[in-house]
């Protein structure tokens, strides 16, 4: 038993820290810290800085322009980036399509697409879910019918995150209705400029615009845009589901959120005293802090498994469940700490003349409501429990 990092890993951490210290723009970090909305330029800017350093594709093998880092190195990078309030790397091209192309893409696809992800020429988004196929992805209905050298796509996708910034989309589509529903699915790449595509914003519970619906009407896509074989889409989808799960616990984000809650509870008053001196509220904080401290180790244990045994197992679903519950609990505490001042609809009034919260205050009610998504999207916690039931408990 040894929870410490090796000398090389510690040096690597110093290197990451120095880089973030020097290169992460202060205004970006502050925006992230207060939970402000990053626009496309912000995200492009951070991607470009990382790309210049060669660290943008930190999960990719060296041969494709990645870093070739070990699971522990990736973890250290993610931990330090979160601690420094770096923007999250937009995952659709880098963490999702990239690995799919590494494993299933043709040489042509790899050569053409991967560099454009790195240099920011393309912004990819995801076309997986449909209104009738959420947790039950296999029941998706969007059809792609072969017609000469093309596929013709008809249907609707939804929950397409940051689609408003994208010029490309990768989709799961139905190419066959034979056999089991899973067997007739393919993975295909689509240019969003293609005629017949309409993207509509979805307004979220707290009023923000993060996700979109995408409608396909007779959209013609060249057959060479297929990734892997026709009807191999389910295999690719499952590959993605188990890939890159080291950061799903979101420990770094929760650690930041815990610090914010404590700061807020030190400044907020109840009954004439700082809220943090109220035993009931302090106990609420302590409860979550203890869970988070445990989660850090649970995360490291699974990282160690990935490092020593190649791939993390289904038990990483535990990270998803508990990790999201912890982050949501912290959002809940921030909202409680602010009391009625958490309630104003996000607007200038919050930080303006009639400031209800100080400019540095974060995690108001809007964040709490928005982050209910954490336990729903990316495979709901119910789906994770189903996975664990089969794979870990063997029930």
């Amino acid at each position, binding site marked *: 038993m040894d929870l410490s990092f090796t000398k090389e890993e510690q040096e690597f951490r110093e290197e990451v820290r120095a880089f973030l210290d020097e290169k992460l723009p202060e205004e970006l970090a502050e925006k992230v810290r207060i939970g402000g909305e990053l626009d496309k330029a912000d995200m492009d800017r951070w991607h470009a800085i990382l790309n210049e350093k060669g660290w943008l594709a930190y999960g990719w093998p060296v041969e494709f322009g990645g870093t070739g880092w070990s699971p522990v190195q990736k973890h250290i990078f993610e931990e330090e980036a979160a601690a420094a309030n770096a923007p999250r790397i937009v995952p659709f091209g880098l963490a999702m399509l990239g690995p799919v192309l590494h494993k299933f893409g043709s040489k042509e696809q790899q050569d053409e697409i991967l560099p454009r992800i790195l240099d920011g020429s393309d912004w990819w988004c995801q076309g997986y*879910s449909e209104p*009738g196929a*959420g*947790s*039950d992805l296999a*029941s998706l209905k969007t059809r792609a019918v072969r017609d000469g050298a093309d596929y013709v796509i008809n249907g609707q996708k*939804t*929950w397409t995150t940051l689609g408003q910034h994208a010029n490309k989309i990768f989709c799961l589509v139905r190419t066959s209705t034979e056999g089991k529903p899973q067997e007739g699915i393919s993975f295909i790449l689509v240019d969003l400029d293609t005629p017949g595509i309409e993207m509509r914003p*979805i*307004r*979220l*519970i*707290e*009023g923000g615009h993060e996700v979109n619906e995408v409608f396909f009407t007779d959209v013609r896509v060249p057959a060479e845009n297929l990734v892997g074989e026709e009807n191999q889409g389910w295999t690719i989808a499952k590959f993605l589901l188990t890939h890159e799960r080291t950061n799903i616990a979101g420990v770094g984000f929760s650690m930041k959120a815990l610090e914010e809650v404590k700061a807020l509870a030190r400044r*907020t*008053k*109840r*009954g*004439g005293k700082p809220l943090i001196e*109220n035993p*009931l*509220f302090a106990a609420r904080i302590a409860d979550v802090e203890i869970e988070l401290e445990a989660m850090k180790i649970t995360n490291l244990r699974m990282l160690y498994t990935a490092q020593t045994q190649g791939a993390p197992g289904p038990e990483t679903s535990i990270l998803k469940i508990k990790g999201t519950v912890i982050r949501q609990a912290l959002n809940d505490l921030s*909202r*409680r700490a*602010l*009391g*009625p*001042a*958490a*309630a*104003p*609809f*996000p*607007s200038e*009034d919050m930080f303006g*003349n*009639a400031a*209800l919260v100080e400019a540095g205050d974060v995690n108001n*009610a*809007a964040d*709490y*409501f*928005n982050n*209910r*998504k954490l*336990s*729903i*999207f990316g495979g*709901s*916690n*119910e789906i994770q*429990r189903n996975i664990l039931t089969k794979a870990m408990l063997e029930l």
Partner: protein
Amino acid sequence: MDFTLTEDRRMLSDSLSRFLADKYTYDHRAKVAYEAPFHDAGLWSEMCEIGVLYALAPEDAGGFGGGGFDITTVFEALGRGLSPAPVLGTLLASKLLTAAGADQSALLDGSVRYAVAIGELDAPYDLDGIATEASGGTLTGRKSVVYGGNDAEVFLVAAKSGDGLAIYEVKASDADVTGYGLIDGGGAAELFLDKTPGTEVLANARDALEDALDAGRLALCAEAVGAMDATNEILLDYLRTRKQFGVPIGKFQALQHRAVDLVTEIEQARSITIFAASRMGEADQARSVSMAKTLIGRAARLVSEEAIQMHGGIAMTWEASVSHYGKRLVMIDAQLGDVDYNLERVMAGYAA
């Protein structure tokens, strides 16, 4: 023992529910609740004509109600209909004016909109922390998140006066008011007072303020019960109709048992609200209301979070009514005393 509403209250409840269903349709509500003045001002007088406000005041104050079950009748219907109308401020104002023996006809007929300003940034729930001070006919201080304050013509302001607390009437036009909308719909305001003229309505007002706050807390409990009932109906309908893996998701036992736990909590919430309503005016009013608000705070959050979780992604959208009910249910806890504040009031009796 009788757990039915009196004929009068049943009629009021029906009228108000019908009014909200007809006039505050989901689309209409979703629009007006989030744009100034954060409710449909044009419908205010129409709602008042039903007698909603008169039901909140006793007969000798010009109303025809004012009891615990009058309050719960009105607010349960408002909660079921997810109304953003600023009725809570009216209730608090009526309680204060009744205590002061002041005329409140313009309040009850809906022609003048009142808001009650008690909480402050550093003292959102407790009267002891009030820093706003009265001196020589003027008031100085800041009142925070004054419900309905964005659209009020008159404020009743709680302020320190000598050793005690008193209530002052302040005209909106005399004060610096910054209104804004709330994340769960409806409006509020920051009220900045800087030697602002105020007329004393009631001196030594601590008991009257606590009483008004208790009435407000009871109202919020009833509102939550109405909103939980509506949320539960939406959820059950969704569980019956939404299909995944080829069957309605309501066939999955894990969800079934969680749905059962929700109705259990809702029935408990209904019960404790009935209990608190029955104790209004009795010696244990404060404790009973705090018991109710504590249980409601927990139950409403649970119902909100579970209804959203069981809906899945669709509940994360503005378009889904469950998201708006969900927001209201959670935010009720932050009004007039949250779970911890009320739990401490219940615990306070133990040490003896």
